[in-house]
């Protein structure tokens, strides 16, 4: 079954444990600068929003890559091969969401690879803001809460 990362900003406290976990798993050091997931702090609104690659089905990054360094893994993740990547950055331009980024330290690009089906960010998140669930039911929790809320209204009128 294909799974996907589900990000719930309502639960995010902005602690960046996800960024630490991501960079540690991929680079061996705690270094948010190389994290494939980022938490944005919209200070004036009091909102923390985690954001990363959604693994587009027809991925712009993959189609744009001139050396075919981006391929589809068994998890559905679009994965960059460091051996093939030439650091041309065309994928960083092609991605409409900005989730592919260049790493000057290695001359390669960084993007979420779903950690081979065991995303470190989801495991590290202390509040459940990041989960890895059935890709066909990413709206399940939201539907469930709205079902409850709207049905409570119906009950009140009945």
């Amino acid at each position, binding site marked *: 079954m294909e799974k996907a990362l589900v990000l719930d900003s309502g639960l995010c406290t902005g602690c960046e444990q996800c960024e*630490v976990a991501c960079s540690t798993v991929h680079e*061996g050091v705690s270094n948010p600068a190389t994290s494939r997931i980022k938490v944005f702090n919209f200070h004036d609104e009091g909102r923390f929003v985690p954001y990363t690659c959604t693994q587009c089905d027809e991925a712009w990054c993959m189609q744009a890559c001139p050396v075919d360094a981006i391929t589809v893994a068994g998890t559905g993740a679009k994965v960059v091969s460091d051996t093939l990547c030439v650091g041309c950055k065309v994928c960083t331009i092609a991605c409409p969401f900005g989730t592919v980024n260049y790493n000057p330290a290695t001359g390669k690009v960084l993007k979420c690879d779903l950690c081979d089906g065991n995303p470190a960010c989801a495991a590290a998140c*202390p509040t459940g803001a990041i989960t890895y669930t059935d890709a066909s039911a990413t709206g399940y929790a939201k539907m469930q809460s709205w079902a409850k809320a709207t049905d409570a209204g119906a009950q009140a009128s009945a």
Partner: protein
Amino acid sequence: MSWTQKILRVNLTKGTCTPEPLNMEWADKYLGQRGLATKYLTEEIDPKVDPLSPDNKLIVATGPLTGTAAATGGRWSVITKGALTGAIACSNSGGFFGAELKFAGWDMVIFEGKSKKPVYLLIQDDEATLVDAADYWGRTVWETEKGLKAEHQDPQIRVASIGQAGEVGVKFAGIVNDLHRAAGRSGVGTVMGSKNLKAIAVRGTKGIAVNDQAAFDIATSAAKAVLAENGVTGEGLPAMGTQVLMNVINETGALPTRNHRDSQFEGANDISAEAMAEPRRSDGKPNLVRNGACFSCTIGCGRISTINPEHYTVKDREQYQIASGGLEYEAAWALGAANGVNDLDALTFANFICNEQGFDPISFGATVGAAMEMFEMGVITPKDTGGLDLTWGNAETLTTLAELTGRGEGFGAEIGLGSKLLCEKYGHPDLSMSVKGQEFPAYDARGIQGMGLTYATSNRGACHLRGYTVASEVLGIPEKTDPLSSDGKAGLVIAFQDATGAVDSAGLCVFTTFAWSMDNIAPQIDAACVGDWSVEKLLEVGERVWNLERKFNLDAGFTGKDDTLPKRLLKDAAKSGPAEGKVSELGKMLPEYYSLRGWTKDGVPTNDTLSRLVL
């Protein structure tokens, strides 16, 4: 490994930035942050130095766990001789700045001398430069942080800066990072301002490795599970923040009210966590927007709040109709109960101003309380205050004074002296509720006996974060002791002081110790750092740091006579609640404390104690 093993020495007089290797022999004895920076400071400055002279130094320090996956591994500290106290100062902050400094490759920055003109330090990984700060001098913390990010076209820069309070010499100015986290106490921002140093802006992309990643993963994961499952760190603090304490401490009869004249506040519930969660009539929203975490923190106790848009403080000032750092317990107490104000929006606004202009809400609120008492006595008159009515409970006076103090204007310039100098100026030194010049936080020493000893012996002046025996005496952590009894409190205070010294030196947050014992902490440090870091070794670090700080203060001219409390707490009994009729039994606890510490009856560490601790 976990230490970057590199420090940056910034000579502001010469305008130079020079890297140096970290003294690893000292790191093995003092661990990091509070301990290690205190070692550097005490080796490098004359304890008798004027805190505001160029010969004082200011050290910005991280711990070995700062920037790592260890829960709460985002702490950093400022170590200097305090402007408010003239004693050793160590002010600890969270947020994201400290971790960023580590990611850039630096354990510490030592500032020495004084710049001829205002400058800020820009660190981008290995590159460090002093930059002209003419455009930022005279600006607030909030303007400075936004300006620096815009100037360098880098929204990921982290900034620690002083506001106008630090520039104009408010004695309790702090250093604020990430808009609303602060190294708030003892006047560390005043020292920074005296050096013409406006800000430190850091961007780090190098990251932090630990010594044994596999062992570190196991130790940190286990410790995070302990935090998650604990009632205080897993539920109470995320949901209600430290403000969970407001009603609890009031019921304990230890909520100092109106400059410690009373020890229970009739308006406590109006300024509590419960009140912050209550939807208001105007826009249907509560004061509390949500909780927020510092770097790597899985507790997330931080409050993010808004002010009622119809409140007088913000009605015509859109720039304050935003979410920002809300009331923590100490701030809510100092701005509220200490001067009898029960207007939650006024307190939230005053707290915004403390963050925006960079000054300590505890010392500010407590000093306003002392001024209000002298106003009631007729010692301070409307002529002195520029017409301000300092009657107890006047919210508009509180918020006006916050703005005036931040800019050093009008009667705010007198509040900016701190309560000790203010009360001396008006001839009533006894009315300053302080130790070594630093105002008390939010626990009455008559109702929580251990805290009286904690305050009296605290090396940086009155402080709850040097030995939080409230955990034991009120919350029953790790085990319940009677808050009204002084029996056994000397040993309890010492245990808390030493453990806190180790936690502060590691780069962790002391709030973890609501759930963690040293048995949870030691394996994390041991896995992260080279060397063997047992519980025993860590507690010895804590004790060593305590004695080193003590030694500095004695060399600076403090004596055992300064380990005392204001007469009000020693002579005037609490008037209501469970502590009614009680005074602080400091006189009983202090000799036992000295003896258990291995100090003489005058409070001087004996040679045996010093040599045992390799001092």
